[in-house]
């Protein structure tokens, strides 16, 4: 039995259904990230777990106990809010111990707990300050301290890093990951940033319009997207999704990509997914991640199915660690990721290696994966 179980959760505001039957579960000590574009219902889902929103139907269980109708304070959870939500009239110590004060914990015990958390988060020198005297990163730490001090069964994070600047965000991301590793707590984390999702999660639920599009480990989500939305949403730069048709090349199937003012590229598929044969002569969406489309020297040596084709390079973007080249295939800009020192000129025709082992195919009509 999983530690956190959500069964058939539905949430309705009047006529509008915000959550349309969510089924998710998480093992003890796991890190579940709810990711999706704004308005997909991920924050609402988190609020229903916290008890800040009621649910219309379904069940939420933590450690075998149904918590659907319990008051937020009785659910044994702690929450870190997007805006930190520190009480401005209290000191850092007051903020951290407010929950204990409400539960009637004696002052001496409260002090002990505060000191312990302050040590873990290295905020001991800030305890007597007011939130207005803290920097963004310090406020973030205090907000986490307020959650940590409760020692709850479940931690809920609602986009905790979205108010920090880029560098601090990376630091705090690592800190959260370290905290999770050392304390072994169970965490549910909401974000719209797919990099946070990939780096932090043990399980990811990609959401759209109140439905879970795919639920799995980060590797599953990244390498095996179940539909076009997940493929497009996860990964940066995003996966190239190229309109193509399925043709034949000898006995094997092949992917035919249209090019501007030149004959189409015909990529032979050595081990095409079984479902693809039904699409012969029909349009499909050909998905290939930028790192699977590279210069022939930089291509993976042991990949079993690599096809090379000449492409017209329109734009070159040196990014330091890599060089990104943009070409045009099937009427869309397609990004290839090359080695940093790749010698490539905009306007030239350069051979690019397609790693077809990593390629995925989608039905343009249903947007589902062709397997």
């Amino acid at each position, binding site marked *: 039995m999983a530690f956190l179980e959500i069964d058939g959760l539905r949430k309705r505001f009047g006529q509008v259904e915000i959550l349309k039957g969510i089924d998710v579960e998480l093992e003890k000590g796991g890190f579940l990230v709810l990711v999706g574009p704004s308005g997909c219902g991920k924050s609402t889902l988190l609020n229903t777990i916290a008890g800040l929103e009621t649910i219309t139907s379904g069940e939420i269980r933590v450690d075998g106990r149904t918590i659907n109708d319990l008051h937020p304070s009785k659910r044994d959870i702690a929450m870190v809010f997007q805006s930190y*939500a520190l009480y401005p009239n209290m000191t850092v110590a007051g903020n951290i111990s407010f929950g204990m004060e409400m539960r009637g914990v004696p002052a001496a015990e409260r002090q002990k707990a505060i000191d312990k958390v302050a040590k873990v988060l290295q905020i001991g020198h800030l305890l007597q300050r007011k939130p207005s005297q803290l920097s963004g990163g310090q406020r973030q730490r205090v907000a986490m301290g307020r959650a940590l001090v409760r020692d709850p069964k479940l931690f809920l994070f609602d986009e905790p890093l979205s108010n920090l600047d880029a560098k601090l965000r990376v630091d705090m991301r690592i800190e959260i990951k370290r905290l999770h590793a050392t304390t072994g707590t169970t965490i549910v984390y909401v974000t719209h940033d797919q990099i946070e999702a990939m780096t932090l999660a043990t399980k990811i639920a990609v959401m759209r319009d109140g439905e879970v599009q795919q639920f799995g480990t980060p590797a599953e989500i990244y390498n095996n997207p179940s539909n076009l939305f997940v493929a497009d949403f996860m990964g940066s730069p995003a996966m190239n999704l190229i309109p193509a048709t399925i043709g034949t090349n000898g006995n094997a199937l092949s992917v035919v990509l249209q090019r501007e003012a030149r004959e189409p590229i015909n990529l032979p598929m050595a081990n095409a997914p079984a479902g693809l044969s039904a699409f012969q002569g029909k349009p499909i969406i050909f998905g290939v991640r930028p790192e699977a489309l590279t210069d022939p020297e930089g291509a993976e040596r042991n990949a079993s199915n690599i096809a090379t084709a000449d492409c017209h390079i329109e734009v070159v973007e040196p990014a330091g660690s890599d060089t990104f080249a943009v070409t045009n295939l099937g009427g869309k800009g397609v990004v290839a990721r090359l080695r940093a020192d790749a010698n490539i000129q905009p306007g030239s025709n350069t051979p690019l290696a397609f790693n077809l082992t990593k390629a995925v195919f989608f039905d343009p009509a249903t947007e589902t994966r062709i397997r």
Partner: protein
Amino acid sequence: MSAVTTPARQASGGVSVKTLNRIVIYGLLALFALFYLMPLFVMLVTSFKTMDEIQNGNMLALPKAPTFDPWLKAWGETCVGLTCAGIKGYFWNSIKMVVPAVLISTMLGALNGYVLTKWRFRGATLVFGLMLFACFIPFQSVLLPMATILGSLGRFGVTLQNSVGTSFGLGNPTVNLVFVHVVYGIGFTTLFFRNYYEAFPTELVKAAQVDGASFFQIFRRIMLPNSMPIFVVTVIYQFTNIWNDFLFASAYAGTGDAMPMTVALNNVVNTSTGVVEYNVNMAAAMIAALPTLLVYVLAGRYFVRGLMAGAVKG
């Protein structure tokens, strides 16, 4: 852009036009300020003059021999109606009426604002709309219905007095006025607090809920301590309005011992016996105006304090 256009404008002789504009603007402002302050100035200087000087001198002239006697007389000796014990008793009447009325109406407004924004219920907008409507009902139109209600409350008070032994203040003119001002003030105080709490981060309330705080604990520990600016605004507004009210005061406590300051001042000025003591009248009027000024001076500095700084965001 501005860096480019400013020198160009100066070069075309714009400086003199700009200066002229300034002169006109400040000249007008000074004129209006003068108009506005003139009556206060006359009141102030007159209250320090002797009657001889008033009768023979210029109204705008400064007092030749400043004297505190008119103030002392206004405070302790002047005649209000038929009793000649000064206005001090009525001053305290007003204080006894204003302080509870201001505090009760402000606290109720804060509670209303808290519920209307953080514990929204079906029809909350309608309720707020109706309360707003209450702000625009003219005082005169509620005079008679309110008199009827106060009469009923008074009779209920007598019944209580006879059966329980205490009327709980029902029927007492001061209590009546507090009641009227609280009822009439709730619309405004709710409006103030609702608009303030509308912008108050709801996540603080949610965090407090997760921390296990109850409805009133959240109100007392989270909302109220962070409401100082609007609290001060509301107190100043309510204090000024209730202290200066004449209509309700004269209608429901126009005679007798509970008469508030404003009615008493009117009776001082309207006394028909003997010479009209302008200096005493002016001093009494100044005394009547002082508390509202004092409240503003004491509380005004909280207006500008940004107490919410640091609550949310980085």
